């Protein structure tokens, strides 16, 4: 038992994103009706449901069951799922109409993950778990065609299929055509409203009791409708509920369903929920096509390699004032980088500046972790996250074996390289990039691509003191926007890695009472941020 708890704790400590919308049968979709969605590869979902209903057609008038389900993404278009009908083990599953152990698979054969229109085929085997000796162990097989159409916040899903019932001794059960339809509407990103209808031409109900000489058997048409909601508590947890009724002769009078499902990404596959579980996001192919920046921040690979040599210094790059350029953050791993002495030879086309070269002085220190330290730190880390204290700026470390020293958590970011652009990037009082400015930015973009160490890029706009503070803040921000937009749209820099800030006249580097000083103050800075050792 303790091993189990430890294993569960490990899972708890390593939450990854996953897609989270399996239904009560385990198949991805609404609560009852499957959709053509499939769980993405490497993700796993489990669900626990409770279903209470009343059915006046049976001798047992009410039922309460607790099905559990599991769903696994096998490929980009393929999932397998299963469900156990009732972990209350109270014998209510017969009258609930859900007394089967399900094992199924769904393959999407038309439409990509992000397509509006999709089709899938859903194959399911259902083995009856019943108090009735005649029914127990009988297996039904079904195949369904699932069609889904999603548009903006609205989705509609239709299923149609055929169910071949298993052989029950002494009873002839006709095959059944099964249908389902469902609509969903995302009221807010976290909340979806669902309407579902399921139907069958010959729904077989078998009621048995040990005192009865023969079981009662009914074969009637069935139509059940329900209205429900899904609330995405987090990307990992979904709350589901619905209330429904049946219109067939032997259908339940009322049925209330409540379920909680949780999903995890396992293995190496990590995929975020797009705005809380609506539909899976396709791979951002636009980014892939745009000169992707492969960021391998810091790993043991660096230790094996020779001391890294930075790219040749741009003429716009300026010297970093060591120990003055740092921000406090809390990244994950522990990687220590001494402040960079970026050599510089700034010769601005407009403002020639000579800055002496300095030797680069970089050291990387990775302390060996102890097992107990790692465990205690992991627990502390998790508790902090649970209590709302979350870490910033994760350093993703790649490599076959990556020891993460955790006894000292780095809490600072530092400016590793800095590029300064004079006001020739823009015309006076304007925020449109000049041709010279574009050329300068392209040079820096090349540095961004070549440099493997930066975690984030920050673009600061600065002005002189001519004009009001508010006006200058706006102007500096617009200039930052122009620079950032160019780097993103023309040079393929990942927008999620770029921050901008309008600094206005708040950070002058020269006196504002002379024309030269004001010209120096009108500038744009691009900062490369990296993790810095904890102090």
């Amino acid at each position, binding site marked *: *038992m303790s091993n189990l708890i430890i294993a569960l704790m490990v899972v708890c400590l390593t939450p990854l994103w996953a897609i989270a919308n399996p239904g009560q049968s385990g198949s991805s979709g609404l609560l009852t009706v499957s959709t053509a969605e499939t769980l993405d590869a490497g993700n796993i979902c489990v669900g626990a449901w409770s279903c209470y209903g009343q059915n006046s057609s049976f001798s047992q008038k009410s039922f309460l069951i607790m099905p559990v389900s599991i769903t696994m993404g096998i490929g980009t278009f393929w999932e397998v799922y299963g469900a156990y009908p009732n972990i209350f083990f109270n014998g209510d599953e017969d009258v609930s109409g859900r007394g089967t152990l399900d094992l199924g698979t769904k393959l999407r054969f038309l439409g990509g993950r*992000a397509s509006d229109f999709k089709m899938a085929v859903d194959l399911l085997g259902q083995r009856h778990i019943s108090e009735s000796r005649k029914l127990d162990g009988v297996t039904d097989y079904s195949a369904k065609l699932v069609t889904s159409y999603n548009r903006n916040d609205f989705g509609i899903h239709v299923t149609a299929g055929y169910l071949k019932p298993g052989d029950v001794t002494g009873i002839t059960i006709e095959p059944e055509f099964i249908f389902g339809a469902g609509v969903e509407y995302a009221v807010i990103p976290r909340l979806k409203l669902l309407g579902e209808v399921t139907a069958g031409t010959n729904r077989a109900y078998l009621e048995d009791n040990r005192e009865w000489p023969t079981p009662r058997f009914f074969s009637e048409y069935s139509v059940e409708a329900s209205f429900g909601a899904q609330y995405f508590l987090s990307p990992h947890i979904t709350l589901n509920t619905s209330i429904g009724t049946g219109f067939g002769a032997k259908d339940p009078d009322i049925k209330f369903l409540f379920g909680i499902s949780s999903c995890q990404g396992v293995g190496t596959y990590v995929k975020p929920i797009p705005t809380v579980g609506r539909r899976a*996001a396709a791979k951002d192919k636009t980014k892939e096509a745009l000169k992707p920046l492969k960021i391998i921040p810091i790993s043991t690979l660096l230790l094996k390699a020779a001391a890294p040599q930075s790219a040749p210094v741009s003429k716009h790059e300026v010297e970093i004032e060591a120990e003055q350029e740092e921000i406090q953050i809390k990244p994950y791993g522990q990687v220590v980088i001494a402040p960079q002495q970026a050599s510089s030879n700034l010769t601005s086309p407009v403002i020639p500046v000579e800055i002496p070269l300095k030797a680069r002085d970089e050291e990387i220190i990775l302390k060996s972790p102890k097992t107990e330290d790692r465990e205690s730190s992991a627990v502390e880390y998790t508790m902090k*996250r649970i209590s709302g204290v979350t870490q910033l700026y994760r350093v993703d470390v790649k490599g076959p074996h990556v020891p993460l020293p955790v006894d000292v958590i780095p809490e600072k970011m530092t400016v590793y390289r800095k590029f300064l652009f004079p006001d020739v990037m823009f015309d006076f009082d304007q925020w449109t990039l000049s041709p010279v400015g574009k050329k300068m930015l392209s040079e820096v973009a090349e540095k961004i691509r070549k440099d493997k160490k930066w975690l984030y890029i920050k673009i600061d706009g600065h002005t002189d003191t001519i004009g009001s503070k508010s006006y200058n803040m706006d102007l500096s921000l617009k200039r930052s926007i122009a620079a950032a937009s160019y780097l993103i749209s023309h040079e393929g820099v990942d927008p999620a890695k770029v921050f901008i800030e309008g600094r206005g006249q708040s950070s002058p580097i020269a006196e504002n009472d002379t024309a030269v000083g004001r010209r120096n103050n009108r*500038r744009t800075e691009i900062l490369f941020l990296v993790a810095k050792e904890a102090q």
Partner: protein
Amino acid sequence: MKSVISMNIIVTGLVVMLLNGYAAAAETTLDATRTLVVVPVKNGNIDQKVYRQIDRVVPELKTISNKKIVKLEYSFSGQPDRKQEVENAYHLAARIEKYLRVRHNLDLALWITIDVRPKSVKTPPVLTLAVFSDDIKKLDAVLINPPKN
């Protein structure tokens, strides 16, 4: 006995899932911090509804030390290689920055970023305000080419 063990396992699993989910819920895709508010921006237009939701978080923003960074992120579906879309996204976020600065007189270290989702993702754009932690004002002390006295 067997069913009791099964129930224990299930209960333990559910507790773990809950803890796990709550822990993960605090994260954003940027590995950030404490999210203050997420405001849907329907059709990419900032209307009174958006401003009202921003207004609600202003009291909390006023309590935030100016040593901390506030992240303002605009997340939308589009193409990062379309300059106009990218610029519009930044300008939209900049309007909120100006609203906080001018209307509410907030003096924040506000870092703006955008998140460009694939165009096929049809969910509405959202603005997110979150707080980074700790002291970043040292960055302000950076002097490039400091004036010689």
